[in-house]
């Protein structure tokens, strides 16, 4: 089986549409079949509340739940012999967030496969904290049964050499609700694919993101939402700031409304704030609509420079320039951060942003 897939495997060249923004030479070989990937599970749960189980399973017993054409995700599926399975019982109301930590301290490439099953009408908050300096490719599949309500927060607080390529795919059933926060502030190259499919009406996905790139960082987020059942809703709001002349970010927002998806309600938004002249933010919203019978569909994308009038206004009230800049940037991100509703993480993210700013000013 491995051989068959490998012959189908097309090494990305960088000319393919999904790869044209990504600097392949900085992927540390994650995309290259010549480079072998370590098969290990580095994700560790902290406390596991009642109603939740976390187990390591044979990957073959848990086939993938969704389709992908992403070459690196295909390598993850091929390369992972084990899988981390997180199961939330039906009707479980888990109040405390479930924390999973990954602290990688070496740069040999590895793969990681995760499945998260949320039972019918279960409620939970799942937080994944990534730090250290790993090179790894991961796939997380979320399977939300009807009425499940999952909030997923993934923090990329990598140090400056890390490479992280991931697909976070949610399958959202009838009346279920999936909310994700993808917070990327560290890493040399981060490329995350938050993707969603729906299997029943009344389902909702809200995808939020925050990224802050400084010199030498390439942070890429490729949202993809397939509306092919009636009556589902999606909201996307990603905000990014770039500081430093070689800072790069990419945001892609693909939303497809298929002919069967009557009553779809979707809106996607991406805003980028350029804090230095050489920084470059690519932002490509893409909405394809095959039925006119929808509630609403829209998108907006803006990329702008820091507003000096705001700085002047704050300074004219005695606030020093640096503090005024921090205030404006915190303000820019607060729309996303305040929705986390987890104070310790909110504080940590805002402090990290302050530090990212201070580094460049200094």
């Amino acid at each position: 089986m491995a051989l068959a897939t490998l012959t189908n495997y097309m090494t990305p060249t960088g000319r393919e549409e999904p790869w044209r923004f990504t600097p392949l030479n900085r992927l540390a070989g994650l995309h290259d079949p010549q480079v072998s990937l370590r098969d290990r599970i580095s994700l560790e749960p902290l406390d596991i509340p009642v109603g939740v189980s976390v187990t390591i399973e044979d990957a073959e017993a848990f086939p993938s739940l969704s389709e992908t054409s992403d070459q690196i995700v295909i390598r993850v599926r091929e390369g992972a012999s084990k899988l981390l399975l997180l199961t939330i019982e039906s009707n479980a109301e888990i109040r405390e967030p479930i924390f999973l930590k990954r602290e990688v301290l070496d740069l040999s490439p590895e793969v990681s496969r995760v499945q998260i099953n949320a039972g019918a009408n279960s409620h939970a908050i799942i937080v994944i904290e990534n730090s250290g300096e790993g090179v790894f490719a991961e796939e997380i599949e979320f399977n939300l049964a009807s009425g499940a309500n999952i909030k997923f927060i993934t923090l990329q607080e990598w140090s400056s050499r890390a490479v992280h390529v991931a697909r976070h795919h949610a399958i959202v059933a009838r009346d279920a609700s999936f909310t994700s926060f993808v917070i990327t502030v560290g890493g040399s190259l981060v490329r995350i694919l938050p993707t969603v499919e729906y299997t029943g009406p009344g389902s909702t996905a809200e995808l939020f993101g925050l990224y802050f790139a400084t010199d030498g960082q390439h942070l890429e987020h490729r949202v993809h939402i397939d509306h092919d059942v009636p009556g589902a809703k999606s909201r996307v709001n990603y905000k990014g700031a770039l500081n430093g002349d070689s800072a790069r970010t990419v945001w892609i927002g693909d939303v497809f409304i298929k002919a069967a998806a009557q009553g779809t309600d979707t809106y996607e938004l991406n805003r980028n704030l350029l804090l230095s002249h050489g920084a470059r933010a690519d932002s490509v919203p893409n909405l394809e609509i095959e039925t006119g019978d929808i509630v609403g569909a829209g998108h907006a994308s803006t990329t702008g420079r820091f507003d000096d009038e705001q700085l002047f206004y704050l300074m004219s009230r005695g606030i020093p320039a640096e503090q005024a800049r921090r205030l404006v940037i915190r303000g820019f991100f607060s729309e996303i951060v305040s929705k986390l509703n987890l104070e310790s993480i909110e504080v940590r993210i805002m402090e990290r942003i302050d530090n990212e700013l201070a580094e460049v000013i200094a």
Partner: protein
Amino acid sequence: MSTLEIKGLHVSVVTEEGAKEILRGVDLTINSGETHAIMGPNGSGKSTLAYSIAGHPKYTITSGSVTLDGADVLDMTVDERAKAGLFLAMQYPVEVPGVSVSNFLRTAVTAIRGEAPKVRTWVGEVKEAMSQLSMDPAFSERNVNEGFSGGEKKRHEILQMELLKPKIAILDETDSGLDVDALRIVSEGVNRVKTNQDLGIMLITHYTRILRYIKPDFVHVFAGGRIVEEGGPELATKLEENGYAEYVTA
């Protein structure tokens, strides 16, 4: 007792056709407790004067001086000017998305006073200042100037003045866009600060309406980037009757 002294002030802005001179020699001295009305037609340079004193980077001072109690204001950064005791209530206050009024006020007051206000007294201080300006307490959780009506923006400017306690305040068309009730509330706020803190005021306005509520000691007619006539309150009455026509053609 403080003195703001403006001498021979020339200011230009950069335009596509090169530098354009807007202020052409402004001389004006404002002492604590005095209210100076600056009245002039649109485009005469009133806001340019206000912004230049506050230090907006768009304006280039080509000659002249501005001092506050002898200290060179033009040599100070924008925040230093505020700390020295200058305050500008803007004609068009700026929106700062994601920054709440309460966070903004606390940050500004901490910067000006040099230490964070005591939590307990501070909450009361803000509450009282807001209620005196007939502002809903919920206001403090809104983002700075975002979605504020014209009147709310102006009240918010005066609220800041009340809390920051400047020595000299420049009010740039604080009356514009206010209905009669709001004008009265805002004017009462200005008069309160003036009495309590012996504030010196530069009251920039196009209309005489606000002068019924805030009584000027001096009236200066501003046209073509300079002061063209000066007098007492009676000059405002004359302007109300005759308008600015004679100054603009002159």
